């Protein structure tokens, strides 16, 4: 009987386990997870903070689901992998053999080395324990400071504001998420935050987190200003947890490098999810994504291949649908903006390196209030889009971008100043979907 060992109990590992089980009914599947809460929706933590969903609702799999898959979930940290001997070693020193191994260890928040960063009340949002800690602190804190950029920083801002905490959001640059959003989009988000009572400080950089009896008491900015607060929440980026793979001698870049079959440098070892650095056929480069659906698709591909199938992972156009200051926002493909984002270090949560790629494209846009569409048009194709507010066109746009729709018939219309982009797209979509009807875009 073959034994499959998965390190990491997140969506990539679960998807791999499901795929293995489908291919190989009689095998043994062991899942090591150091997270005491096991498998839950990590992006859902943001809604736990706002109070839209209770904690117990965040677990997609019941004990029965685990039994049905005949998975053994072991709450241990894997401390080492011995590739030659085909064993993993737990933190307690127990050795467990494998025939095929999956590394799906995810990513972790990067904490900047600030004076005072170890004080109680300095938080991040990686996992359930962090979310619990934040909720507990929010009960006592009247004021909090949030530092960072990207989606998670805003989720922290909104979650804390929803709990009645007065939030001071510090931006190092002059606007929010400037490598992905354009000026108008940043302004829409910032205005909405300010309407909701969030105080935004631009060009603000923390020099020191101030403490009192081991607890956060405030922050001192580089310009000397002091903001009193009981909490400092940090979301400046994440880093793939590649330490285990690196120590084992596997080929790594920024993450664990894998081939088109999610296989690492060792034929019996695979990697998937946030930790995997995959080849992107569209750009010809290797890239990191920190997206839930992507982690699931990679996990599934890895699982099938671990069980002997020949199933290449084909990276698709990355998409995320999120809320930025309460405004539903879909980000698809290459939408990058020139310049540097001082608020983030590399990749953040719910992010794709592709989005920051500067496309050689012209922007077409409509709407400057809450509802807005920005298209990036390169030649005959739309290569990226940001849809804020009304989401009617978000699914059609994803399909047209992923399916590389030839938009030549409407290109000029779209690029005309003041063009009614939504109407043009809606009409074009009706035609295109009929022509393209039989070609389904799978992910």
């Amino acid at each position, binding site marked *: 009987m073959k034994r499959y060992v998965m390190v990491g109990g997140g969506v990539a590992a679960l998807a791999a386990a499901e795929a293995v089980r489908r291919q190989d009914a009689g095998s043994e599947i062991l899942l090591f997870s150091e997270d005491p809460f096991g498998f839950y929706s990590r992006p859902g933590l943001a809604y736990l903070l706002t109070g839209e969903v209770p904690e117990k609702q965040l677990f997609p799999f019941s004990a029965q689901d685990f039994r049905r898959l005949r998975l053994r979930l072991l709450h241990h940290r894997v401390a080492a992998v011995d590739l030659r001997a085909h064993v993993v070693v737990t933190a307690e020193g127990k050795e467990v053999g494998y025939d095929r191994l999956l590394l799906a260890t995810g990513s972790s928040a990067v904490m900047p080395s600030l004076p005072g960063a170890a004080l109680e009340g300095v938080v991040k949002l990686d996992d359930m324990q962090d979310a619990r800690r934040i909720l507990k602190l929010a009960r006592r804190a009247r004021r909090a400071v949030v530092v960072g950029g990207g989606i998670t920083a805003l989720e922290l801002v909104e979650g804390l504001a929803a709990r009645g905490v007065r939030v001071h959001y510090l931006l190092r640059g002059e606007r929010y998420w400037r490598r992905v959003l354009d000026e108008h989009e940043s302004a829409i988000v910032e205005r909405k935050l300010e309407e909701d009572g969030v105080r935004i400080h631009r060009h603000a950089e923390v020099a020191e987190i101030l403490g009192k009896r081991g607890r956060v008491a405030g922050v001192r900015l580089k310009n000397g200003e002091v903001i009193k607060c009981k909490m400092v929440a940090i979301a400046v980026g994440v880093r793939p947890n590649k330490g285990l793979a690196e120590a084992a001698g596997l080929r790594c870049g920024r993450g664990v490098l894998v081939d088109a079959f999610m296989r690492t440098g060792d034929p019996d070892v695979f990697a998937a999810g946030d930790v995997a650095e995959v080849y992107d056929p569209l750009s010809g480069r290797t890239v990191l994504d920190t997206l*839930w659906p992507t982690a699931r698709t990679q996990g599934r591909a890895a699982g099938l291949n671990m069980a002997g199938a020949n199933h290449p992972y084909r990276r698709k156009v990355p998409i995320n649908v999120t809320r930025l200051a309460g405004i539903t926002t879909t980000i698809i493909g290459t939408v990058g903006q020139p310049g540097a984002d001082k608020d983030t270090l590399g990749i953040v949560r719910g992010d794709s390196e592709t989005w920051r790629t500067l496309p050689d494209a012209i922007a077409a846009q409509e709407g400057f209030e809450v509802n807005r569409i920005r298209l990036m048009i390169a030649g005959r194709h739309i290569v990226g889009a940001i849809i804020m507010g009304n989401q009617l066109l978000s699914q059609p746009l994803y399909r047209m971008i992923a399916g590389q729709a030839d938009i030549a018939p409407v290109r000029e219309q779209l690029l005309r100043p003041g063009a009614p982009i939504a109407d043009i797209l809606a009409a074009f979509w009706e035609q295109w979907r009929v022509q393209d009807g039989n070609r389904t875009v799978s992910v």
Partner: protein
Amino acid sequence: MSLRGAFQHERKRREALVAGYVVPDNVRCVQCGICSYNCPIGIDVRRHAWLGEPVHDSHCLTCGECVARCPRGVLRFEKTPLFDAEKNPLLG
């Protein structure tokens, strides 16, 4: 979106309420469970989204709570092909 578009959308939504079922788009889903949490009769909509299957549950009221509450636009109504026995779970 133009006013006309928005109006048509609203009309379509009402029609869907009468003869529709909920369909997930799982590239958007992050399994947060808000849909299942808000279903008044306890259908596990999230599970359908994980499996990529439409909610063909005869108990579904098509009340639209899950569609409206999903923060990521995963769920949408699709019209039941009333007279197509192959696609309509209530016939066939």
